[in-house]
């Protein structure tokens, strides 16, 4: 009597199996997988030996990058997330190029050269001639001016308004010459001129359609190596070769940006050949290294992780300066304003263990705020704090933080900043979901509690954490900076004018008049020569190192896993795709 039921089940199962066993269609990515098996590198080297003329590069092929997040808007002045720039970066020309290995600003994009006036205020850029938008219009200085004027327009809602700071005027001298006049010398000012240019001939001259132009979704006109093809939100974006790209058309047919939110699924797709490039998490490194079809690109990223120590009382956040620019004396943090406590924390952490266990070796210890990647400004003589729990305990004892009641937690017995008897209890927060930071938090809690702290660690949702951070209502926070770029100017972290509760990035309320002065001098050196700026940064690093507003945990190491299906890939720390037009299928 149950046979019918079984046959229904059997039919279902059979249907599932039939579906599963259906002949596989031939998607682009899977055909590619077969070509990868034949490692043709050997053949190529042989040919180089035999004949001096290289083989013509194989045309065709598609590169698929996997990303956790999708682009939000494909307009270079409205976008503020890295995923959007990953895609829109293919289309919009920019004034300045960046060396993929050193990160230095170089004349490889629209500006083929520039002159600076003697006072350093007037910059004249000479543009490449003959660069065309894909609809046949020429890319000119007007596009640059339109883009930056649009940013300043009331009609345009963009977080990029600060890119215009200090710019007094932008003039088009002729279609291939731009003159930018600054109000004062700022050595890192060029960084603000790097945004992509909009094709001004497709927009209303009064900027009224910048916000809701269909081009924000489908930027059909390109002056870069690829032309926009299709964008299916949260699924994929595809771009096709621009046959008229001024640096030479790419050999590959196109590039795909595929959204795969889960890191485990991204790794799986890289292994099956459905993806060609992913950012690799430390715990995934071994899998990549063991796979003969994959390569790994490891690089020192321009970021670091740190523990921010709030110098001011979180119950009374105050701005660092009044309206005239005078320092406002802060209500000090009852515990963390004590330099001895900060020194004890810096000495109590086992950085080697943290880097090897939490970061799985993907990090390196740093002593202060300028990363070694910015070679000219970095001070290599500065030594990071050494792991020494006895010394840490001694510092606390000497500073009047002792455990008088034997409960394992120190109290203030004659300390400088807190009320007598106050326990050494500090909150430590980070953003939930970032497992590395959660692990670090647990380890820091453990190590600090080992010398008599009472660390109350909690991981909270990122949006909430950002609110606490900028609101300056936290004690200690584990977080990091990424994308610091090539200029060492990081005044927004340390200058007292950026200590503005609710918005400023000097949220640790660090206040040091000498640092304010040095930060200002370092970016206004006449001529901006690196050797003239370096001494300022060396002194800044020394002071930050000694004052410990941050405990520097590790410099970031990035890992990119990618397929070997193309020849010519030569990734630099600042750009993976800088020479993508020269890549050709390994075949």
């Amino acid at each position, binding site marked *: 009597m149950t046979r019918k039921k079984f046959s229904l089940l059997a039919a279902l199962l059979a249907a599932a199996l039939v579906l*599963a066993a259906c002949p596989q269609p031939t998607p682009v990515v899977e055909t590619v997988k077969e070509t990868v098996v034949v490692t043709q590198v050997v053949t190529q080297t042989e040919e180089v030996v035999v004949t001096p003329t290289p083989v013509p590069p194989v045309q065709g092929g598609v590169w698929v990058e996997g990303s956790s997040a999708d682009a939000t808007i494909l307009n270079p002045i409205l976008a503020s997330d890295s995923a959007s720039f990953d895609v829109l970066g293919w289309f919009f020309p920019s004034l300045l190029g960046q060396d993929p290995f050193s990160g230095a600003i170089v004349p490889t994009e629209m500006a083929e050269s520039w002159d600076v006036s003697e006072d350093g205020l007037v910059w004249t850029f000479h543009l490449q001639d003959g660069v065309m938008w894909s609809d046949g219009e020429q890319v000119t200085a007007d596009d640059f001016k339109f883009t930056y004027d649009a940013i300043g327009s009331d009609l345009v809602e963009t977080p990029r308004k600060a890119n215009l700071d200090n710019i007094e005027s932008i003039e088009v001298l002729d279609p291939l010459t731009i003159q930018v006049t600054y109000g004062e010398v700022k050595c890192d000012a060029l960084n603000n001129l790097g945004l992509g240019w909009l094709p001004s001939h497709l927009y209303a001259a009064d900027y009224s359609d910048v916000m809701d132009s269909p081009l924000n979704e489908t930027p059909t006109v390109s002056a870069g190596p690829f032309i926009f093809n299709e964008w299916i939100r949260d699924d994929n974006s595809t771009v096709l070769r621009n046959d008229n790209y001024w640096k030479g058309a790419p050999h590959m047919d196109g590039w795909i940006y595929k959204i795969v939110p*889960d890191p485990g*699924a991204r790794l799986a797709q890289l292994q099956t050949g459905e993806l060609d490039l992913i950012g690799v998490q430390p715990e995934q490194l071994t899998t990549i290294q063991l796979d003969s079809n994959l390569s790994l690109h490891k690089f020192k990223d321009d970021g670091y992780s740190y523990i921010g120590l709030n110098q001011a009382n979180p119950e009374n956040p105050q701005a660092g300066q009044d309206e005239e620019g005078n320092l406002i004396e802060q209500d000090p943090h009852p515990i963390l304003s004590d330099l001895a406590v900060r020194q004890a924390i810096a000495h109590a952490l086992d950085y080697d263990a943290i880097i090897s266990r939490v970061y799985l070796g993907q990090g390196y210890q740093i002593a202060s705020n300028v990363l070694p990647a910015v070679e000219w400004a970095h001070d290599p003589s500065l030594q990071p704090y050494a792991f020494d729990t006895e010394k840490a305990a001694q510092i606390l004892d000497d500073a009047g933080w002792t455990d008088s009641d034997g409960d394992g937690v120190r109290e203030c017995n004659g300390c400088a900043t807190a009320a007598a008897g106050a326990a050494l209890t500090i909150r430590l927060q980070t953003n939930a979901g970032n497992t590395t930071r959660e692990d670090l938090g647990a380890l820091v809690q453990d190590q600090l509690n080992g010398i008599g702290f009472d660390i109350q660690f909690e991981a909270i949702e990122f949006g909430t954490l950002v609110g606490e951070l900028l609101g300056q209502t936290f004690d200690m926070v584990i977080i990091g900076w990424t994308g610091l770029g090539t200029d060492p100017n990081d005044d927004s972290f340390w200058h007292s004018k950026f200590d503005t509760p609710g918005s400023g990035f000097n949220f640790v309320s660090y206040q040091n008049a000498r640092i304010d002065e040095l930060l200002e001098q370092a970016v206004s050196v006449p001529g901006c020569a690196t050797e003239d700026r370096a001494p300022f940064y060396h002194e800044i690093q020394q002071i930050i190192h000694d004052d410990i507003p941050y405990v520097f945990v590790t410099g970031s190491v990035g890992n990119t896993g990618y397929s070997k299906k193309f020849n010519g890939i030569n990734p630099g720390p600042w750009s993976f795709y800088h020479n993508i037009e020269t890549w050709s299928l390994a075949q």
Partner: protein
Amino acid sequence: MTRYVIRRLLQAIPTLLGVSFIAFVFVYNSPGDPILIRTFDPNITQESREILRRQLGLDQHWALQYISWVTGITLRSGQVVQEFERSDTSCTFIAWLNTTSCNNGGGILRGRLGTSIATNQPVWDRIVERMPATLQLGVSALLVSLLIGVPLGVLSAVRQRSIFDASVRVLAVVGNALPSFWMGLMLILLFGVVLGWLPTGGMRTVSLTNEFDLVDRARHLILPTFVLAVGGIALFSRFMRTEILEVIRTDYIRMARAKGVAARNVWFIHALGNALIPLMTTLGPAIFGVLSGAIIVETIFSWPGMGRMTFSAAVQRDYPTVLGAVMFFSVLTIMGNLLSDILYGVVDPRVRLS
């Protein structure tokens, strides 16, 4: 019947207004700030941030923002017509109140869900864009869980206390207990990476042309559908087993047996028919269950659906999108419940809808 439906639909209006108010208060008063999250970047100054906040109206008290969201009319003190007038927004200055009133033609009362802060798209467009993917996954998961769960439940009841019954029970417990993100990843690893039979994620094989291919779509659907359906299979099999066993003890079944009706007909016509009635009441909520369960499955399988969109909008504090999704899900839930009430009447003639 028609009157009943109309009355229920009218009742839905105050419900939805209530939902809109409660959701708005919660969302706008939750910690976090959409502007800070979008501009957590030291290169962006406070002034730029304040300008953006003002342009988006996020500097206003939440009650004023609620009025604006519901009616499409924004009130601001002072004469600021120039600053806020746009091609789609008309502003007038009301002198005696010293207030500028701007009408952007939107507001949920006029059926507009507003514009996303993160992507600058109309929220309705975003929902319409993602809905097909979620529906496709949700409907197939619901069908699979019914087609597998219901027969399994009936068979377990028929073979009560047999090995089959016991194994279905164990499978139901295991299926319910396994977290779907883990099971999803394990299935990807097995069928996608090790065996290479099925794609590891996405709705389609991505290519430069993205042509439609039914077989390819079906293959991409198998794993996520199964993972999303497992909970339903477990639920429906247990539910059906209980219901059948309850029905089987009733007098009319005993009567049917006494009359000598064939066992097969007793089980599948008399018993199953009546046992299905309570199942109808679970269908409405089940639609919502599938939609909410889709968040995890959509993330693991890179499925571009509503669940993922809503979740990431919440993370980004994209208030209009979150609220739009809440309103949309509310309408769907109300419709689902109404539908199951109507179905109830259809399956069981004794139930009168009045």
